[in-house]
């Protein structure tokens, strides 16, 4: 029997245990994204769609789930455990990032491989893929903090997801300073890494990818205590 020793284990085990849910989790992205691998479309659209899926699943998955935990009052029970809020939130984000990474991996690999990647770029793509999933989950958690209810979280997640997708400039080039800002998006870094591995672009700003991640981690740690304060 798999037993949860901490919140990370608990989140992973709960995902694994629900067979129906886990099948759906793997099947839906595969069904939705597989056509992208075979349909003839520009490479930047393919990479943009993958980046958007990571953003969408990560943001919605983590924000909706954590608001549900709050509505079920489980966060009250977690709040009185002898564990720092930042650690609890990081366990939650890491566990959900792991599940999301695995969930999107099959269609991602399919599209990636059919794009005939350069072998040397594979490690970069995988690393940026994991970072993008991690970032999406952190954004979801921050949205959940602002949202008061499940209904609100859907609205905010939709606005933020679309905003980031546009600002990342994955689908179209943004003018001037906006394009520069877009380079800091973890989702742009990931989609650019795909284009780079397929030989569609020559330059990629890998080195700036950790900056937004570190900022998000910092922000999550700062606000984590607020999840465990109540009215």
């Amino acid at each position, binding site marked *: 029997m798999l*037993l949860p020793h901490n919140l990370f*284990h608990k989140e992973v*085990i*709960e995902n694994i245990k629900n067979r129906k849910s886990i099948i759906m989790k793997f099947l839906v992205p595969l069904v939705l994204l597989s056509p992208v691998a075979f349909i003839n479309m520009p490479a930047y659209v393919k990479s943009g769609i993958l980046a958007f899926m990571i953003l969408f699943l990560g943001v919605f998955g983590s924000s909706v789930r954590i608001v549900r935990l709050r509505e079920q009052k489980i966060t*009250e029970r977690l709040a009185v455990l*002898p564990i720092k809020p930042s650690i609890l939130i990081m366990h939650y984000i890491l566990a959900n990032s792991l599940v999301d990474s695995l969930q999107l991996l099959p269609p991602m690999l399919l599209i990636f491989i059919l794009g005939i990647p350069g072998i040397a770029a594979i490690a970069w793509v995988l690393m940026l893929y994991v970072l993008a999933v991690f970032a999406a989950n952190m954004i979801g958690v921050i949205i959940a903090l602002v949202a008061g209810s499940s209904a609100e979280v859907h609205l905010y997640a939709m606005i933020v997801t679309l905003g980031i997708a546009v600002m990342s400039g994955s689908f179209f080039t943004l003018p001037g300073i906006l394009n520069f800002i877009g380079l800091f998006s973890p989702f742009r870094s990931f989609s650019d890494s795909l284009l780079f591995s397929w030989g569609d672009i020559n330059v990629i700003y890998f080195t700036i990818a950790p900056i937004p991640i570190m900022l998000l981690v910092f922000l999550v740690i700062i606000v984590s*205590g607020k999840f465990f*304060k*109540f009215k």
Partner: protein
Amino acid sequence: MKLDRICKQYGDAIILDNIEFEVTKGEILSLVGPNGSGKSTLLKIISKLIEPDSGVLKLFGEEVPDHDPEVMKKIGVLFDHNAHWDNMTGYENAWFFFRSYGLSKIATKTKLEELLKWAGLWEKKDQAVRTYSYGMRRKLAIIEILAHDPQLLLLDEPAMGLDYSSRLALYGLIDDITKRGKSVIFSTNDVAEAALLAHEVLLLNQGKIIATGTPDALISSLQLSTKIEVKLANPIPLNGIENIENVQGLGIDTTVTDCFKIDILTGSGKTVLPELIRKIFDENGIIQGIEMKQPTLGDVFLKFTGENHAVTS
């Protein structure tokens, strides 16, 4: 644990108003009050889940920061809800909380088995919590807060939803815990429960402490009368009974037709009763039954919350 002038307000509504009290080692304090009197908010303030607007809270002798793991290791909090991960089994849920409180795998296994058996949940431990009844969830939540042997237990309506035998087991457990030097603060709507368990009772109404003291002291502070109802097979003259010391009132209950029933009001039931029986025998009365209705903490509650009390004062 000490609270000093704790206040909490939501908008214009005053939830807690200058709450002050102290709980010492081995003490059981009961927060009694009607719905919405601020009991749950007060417990959440002590658990550091809610920030008071003003006032000082000292836990284990000092003001502590929020979410201090070292402090939380010494506290066990039972909420008025039984939130669990419903798709996981009772055993998995409890295992998570035990491990989160820092128990080793071996200690968790041993203690969990012991507590699940105590609560009668051992046979159902591998069932998903969604299949549990309300009472079973409550028992599971109680088990989970006992994992780390806390110094201070904060229980919000602990017996809510429990069957009679489980309530008795819980009362026994609370008694055992305090005998080992731990302190317990529990809220309840059930004044009988407070009277049975608490060393000290704190009556709350509309966010204010309206009375505090031991259950006995609170009852005697109202100077309520004890009512003795005596059923006799035959009528007797009442002159002798009237003259018994401490008898405050005497009457014949004319609504009863199958016997001769007299009601006696007294400030001291225990001293009057032997003399009363002697007088009845002296008058050749045949006693069919005697019932002594002593004032309870319920009367104190009703008196202080503005309702009529059951026993005549």
